[in-house]
């Protein structure tokens, strides 16, 4: 049995390690082989970018060598897939190699596409990559006051990021003693300030309390960089001195090119996590088309379900679990308080008031991630 994992990020790594432990004896007896193909020899802890943007973490703290995170029996190659041939159960890689499989897991994540919004790349700061987060920090340091606008592209990973960045900006300018010189305006695509109703209900009075203005039903259409104006699809506009964006996302180009899913989002069964029409192909994390938050947390819980099912199919011939849509997100409510949202397909999150201990739990999790991704937590 040849198991091929494409993508060595959050979901792919948890899945591969979990599977390697469940199938340790089958791997020893050479009945099962696990191969992982990824695009990088480094693994990035992406949530850390939020802290890099405020000078609270250094970029080098975000990385580990991917191989060091994997069970030694996993055959790991930095050789990204360039062609998927699902009808022939094989993929072709950048180096020209062909890998055949019996079971395929696709966990290639998502990418930012700010270029889809004219002016967004040149006109805004963001924190969705290492370089942009460092650049944003330097820009924030130089900022002495004026109008800050926050805009949100659709779809985007980490749906909590828009509110987190807003609270963090407030605390940052306050700590620098210039909050009274900064006007913060938050823009959100739908008719309330967060898509999760209970997050919106909690965050609205918090925004009022800290003096953050908000405009809803604002889908960013273009940025007039010269005149420093951001315009919405809905016909409104906002002037800014500093524009912060959560860029829109797509899945990886290879997913679109090989027609696995429009926009790079692969049609996925919401309970079994198999690709529609392909029972031996599983899809994890950001690249699914599921109506589930694009978060490391969703990728983690999905990976556990898929690992358990692939292993049980090998051992007893049937899957044993379904994914229930579970997501657990920390919500940083500034630089020293946090809360969390836990929900699934059926149950909405019930938000608690932010407190210092949740913030310190999140700070610890920033380190514990490396244990979690090894599949030990």
């Amino acid at each position: 049995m040849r198991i091929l994992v494409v993508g060595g990020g959050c979901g792919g790594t948890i899945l591969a390690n979990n599977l390697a432990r469940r199938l340790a004896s089958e791997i020893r007896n050479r009945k099962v082989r696990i191969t992982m193909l990824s695009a990088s020899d480094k693994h990035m802890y992406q949530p850390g970018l939020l802290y890099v943007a405020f000078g609270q973490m250094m970029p080098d703290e975000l990385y580990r060598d991917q191989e060091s995170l994997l069970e030694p029996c996993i055959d790991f190659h930095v050789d990204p897939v360039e062609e998927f041939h699902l009808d022939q159960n094989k993929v072709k890689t950048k180096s020209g190699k062909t890998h055949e499989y019996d079971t395929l897991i696709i966990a290639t994540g998502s990418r930012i596409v700010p270029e889809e919004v004219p002016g967004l790349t040149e006109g805004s700061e963001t924190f969705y990559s290492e370089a942009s987060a460092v650049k944003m920090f330097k820009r924030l340091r130089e900022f002495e006051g004026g109008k800050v606008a926050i805009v949100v592209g659709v779809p985007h990973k980490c749906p909590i990021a828009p509110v987190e960045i807003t609270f963090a900006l407030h605390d940052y300018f306050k700590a620098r003693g210039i909050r009274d010189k900064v006007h913060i305006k938050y823009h959100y695509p739908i008719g309330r300030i967060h898509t999760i109703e209970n997050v919106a209900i909690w965050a609205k009075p918090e925004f009022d309390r800290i003096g953050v203005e908000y405009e809803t039903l604002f889908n960013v259409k273009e940025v007039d960089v010269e005149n420093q104006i951001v315009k919405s699809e809905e016909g409104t506009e906002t002037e800014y001195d500093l524009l912060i964006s959560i860029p829109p996302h797509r899945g990886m180009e290879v997913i679109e090119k090989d027609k696995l899913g429009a926009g790079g989002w692969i049609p996925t069964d919401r309970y079994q996590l198999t690709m529609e029409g392909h029972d031996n192909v599983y899809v994890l994390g950001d690249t699914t088309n599921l109506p589930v938050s694009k978060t490391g947390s969703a990728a983690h819980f999905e990976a556990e379900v898929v690992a358990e099912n692939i292993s049980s199919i090998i051992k007893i011939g049937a899957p044993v679990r379904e994914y229930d849509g579970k997501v657990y997100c920390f919500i940083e409510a500034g630089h020293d308080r946090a809360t969390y949202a836990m929900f699934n397909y059926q149950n909405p999150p019930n938000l608690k008031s932010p407190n210092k201990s949740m913030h310190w739990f999140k700070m610890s999790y920033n380190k514990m991630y490396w244990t979690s991704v090894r599949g030990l937590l």
Partner: protein
Amino acid sequence: MSECKTIDARDTFCPGPLMELITYMKQANVGDTLELLSTDKGTASDVPEWIKKVGHEMVSSEKVGEVWHLTVRKTK
């Protein structure tokens, strides 16, 4: 040629039905029709509000059992 696509946004709290619709709207071509399925009670008012403000066309809205079926057309 215009297409009709169904978006299954039943039982989702995040990203939620309207966010899902906006995602698929961006991928659609002018003239395409999208049918949104939702179990969220707010959808019946949230979606028409956005469609009106942004300037697309609301084709129909009906509740079948526990599921809202909202059909919209991309006009620009």
